[in-house]
């Protein structure tokens, strides 16, 4: 009993620590990659090729004055960043990293991830409203509408693979792909999933809630210091979580090519690196959608696609499997 508890705590600490560290370096990576794509160098000053930049940033944020606007709703204002961060981390409790490396297994794992990640919107809405600023509120509105809509497509796109795997448990889903990854069975689902994932994580081209150029950073305009850092932490944690879900559902999780005997966790990290690179790559490439375009793409294009995918999968499964 106690040994189990200690093991569980160790695992949790390991995962959370890794995430926090990786997130810090993700910002660095993003700036570097975008810099190179845009034919510049990115951060160069702190450390070798700016390697210590994230630590400097973190230190700066940590030491910065924590301003709460006088007209803000104080309680909500303080809770909001936590509400964003907590779901982002809770998601990791059921994600699969390796055959035997996970924090816990739940029967409704996939579903739980969807449910918990949908809570992130609360933090954003709370932040936007509590700031008592029109930019923040507008950002919060956009975010609420966008995340509610795209959550549906995200969920629907996952139903196809789910029907193939016959389980909501991540370990089982990954095991079902021992032979063939679901990306080959479900390309349509993956496209929908990926676009919805971009929108869920508020990434370009769907970063309307933040939209620096029009809303002055949207819902977190009024935030500073550690609270601001929380939002960023949550954003990158979300990206990794959603990448992990994508890898687990479409790319066979920790599974790799039999010819190359690498440990599962390594395969997983490699896939993760690719996914994150794609995320950053897209950010450097695409412009932002307009709000009405965003909704139109979602409801008139992705939604029918997702439904079609479910229908076809069900039909095929019913007829041939």
């Amino acid at each position, binding site marked *: 009993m106690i040994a189990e508890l200690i093991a569980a705590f160790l695992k949790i600490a390991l995962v959370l620590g890794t995430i926090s560290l990786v997130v810090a370096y993700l910002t660095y990576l993003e700036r570097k990659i975008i810099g190179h794509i845009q034919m510049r160098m990115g951060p160069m000053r702190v450390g070798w090729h700016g390697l210590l930049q994230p630590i400097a940033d973190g230190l700066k944020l940590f030491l910065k004055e924590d301003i709460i606007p006088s007209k803000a709703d104080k309680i909500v204002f303080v809770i909001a960043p936590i509400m964003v961060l907590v779901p982002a981390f809770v998601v990791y409790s059921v994600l699969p990293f390796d055959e035997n490396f996970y924090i816990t297994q739940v029967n409704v794992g996939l579903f739980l991830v969807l449910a918990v990640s*949908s809570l992130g919107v609360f933090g954003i809405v709370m932040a936007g409203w509590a700031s008592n600023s029109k930019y923040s509120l507008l950002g919060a*509105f956009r975010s609420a509408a966008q995340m509610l809509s795209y959550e549906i497509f995200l969920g629907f796109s996952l139903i196809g693979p789910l029907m193939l795997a016959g389980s909501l448990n991540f370990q089982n889903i990954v095991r079902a792909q021992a032979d063939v990854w679901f990306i080959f069975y479900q390309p349509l689902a993956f496209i929908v999933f990926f676009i919805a994932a971009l929108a869920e994580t508020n990434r370009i081209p769907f970063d309307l809630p933040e939209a620096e150029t029009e809303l002055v950073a949207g819902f977190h305009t009024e935030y500073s210091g550690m609270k601001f850092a929380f939002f960023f932490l949550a954003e990158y944690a979300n990206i990794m979580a959603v990448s992990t879900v994508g890898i687990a559902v479409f790319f066979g999780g920790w599974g790799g090519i039999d010819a190359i005997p690498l440990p599962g966790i390594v395969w997983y990290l490699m896939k993760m690196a690719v996914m994150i690179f794609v995320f950053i790559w897209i950010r450097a490439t695409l412009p932002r959608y307009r709000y009405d375009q965003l909704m139109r793409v979602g409801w008139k294009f992705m939604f029918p696609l997702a439904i079609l995918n479910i229908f076809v999968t069900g039909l095929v499964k019913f007829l041939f499997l």
Partner: protein
Amino acid sequence: MELLFFYMFSAGIIGASLLMVTRANVIHAALLLVLTFFFMSGIFILAGAEFLAVVQVLLYAGGIMVLYLFSIMLMNVEVSVRLRQYHRQSFFAVAASLILIFEVWTVLGRGGSYPAFKGFSWQLGATPGNVEALGSVLYTKYLFPFEVASILLLAAMIGAIVLAKRTIDR
């Protein structure tokens, strides 16, 4: 252990819902309601209804309450905070509620002992999932109510659009 968690969640539910019912600020009330829903999903997990627990979070907290927050923000909340919050019949309402609780309590006390739980195990990760059982009942025995529920949702959707849409003067 189970009992401990049950009491924790119950205390959370009751505390949060009492606070929610008494808040002047609608946003705070809504957030407290979300909190209540979280605790409830905890109760559901304790009862072995894990699917329901997730649905509770996904639909109630993630869906319905966001809708609430969204609508509240569209309206003017600040005005109502300064107004009188309670209805004239509040006293009677509370008195009646208390008596009602007392009565329910008595009824339950009279209920005597129930047979032991036939229940399902509530260990997380146990293989025969609650999802399959639920699904197989939902899509066979209760297929018709299920379809009716979907029609209801459609009707509510149309109704909501019609109601909330601004009439365009021609």
